[in-house]
């Protein structure tokens, strides 16, 4: 089980329709690569976030497949356009089966 996992996202509170808005996300996660050894020389099992998705009212913005070469505390920055007021849903999928989500509303004028 990954511990201390904490997602954070930065989304503007408002935008105009069709405007490209910048979104930044961070999730605190050690992203254990499966290549490190512990003090006894045993391989520390891989435990990473393997997928990250962003949807807006059910429509997809970005869907990322992650490998162990993504750094600790995975960071993503990308751009979205939104047609109307609504909510982004951010979802991180952990190797251990856990799913972390975060939701952010945006007002479109």
């Amino acid at each position: 089980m990954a511990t201390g996992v904490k997602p954070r996202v930065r989304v503007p509170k408002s935008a105009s329709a069709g405007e490209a808005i910048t979104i930044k996300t961070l999730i605190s996660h050690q992203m254990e690569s499966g290549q490190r050894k512990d003090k006894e020389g045993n391989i520390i099992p891989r435990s990473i976030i393997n997928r990250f998705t962003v949807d807006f009212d059910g429509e997809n913005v970005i869907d990322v497949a992650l490998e162990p070469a993504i750094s600790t505390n995975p960071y993503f920055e990308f751009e979205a356009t939104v047609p109307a007021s609504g909510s982004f849903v951010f979802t991180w999928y952990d190797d251990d089966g856990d799913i972390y989500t975060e939701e952010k509303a945006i007002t479109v004028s």
Partner: protein
Amino acid sequence: AALSLAALPMRALAATDMVGEAITAFTGGADVGERGITLTAPEIAENGNTVPIEVDAPGAAAIMVLAAGNPNPDVGTFNFGPLAASQFASTRIRLAGTQDVIAIAKMADGSFVRASQEVKVTIGGCGG
């Protein structure tokens, strides 16, 4: 000079067939062009464990990133949905040593383009 080294600064090379296999798996063996994709990475990594990279390929459906010198070259793939305002993304990656980072975009028409940049991982020290 330094005392201990997290990553040795010599050029790291994965088995080239692993890079080739990853590219073939993504492209299905199609020709890969060079125009229409930008990969931005620092010339010198401040920390090989967290190297910021940006990919940008207007009109792409997906962009795959590889680290040609890591023991496993796979880094990740960005798939862009209908609400992506651009086919741009930025993340941070681990590099085991000085090597080329490669980005390959699958364009909407099914063609492929690539870009690469050398990122130097150094032990550092010294200065003016």
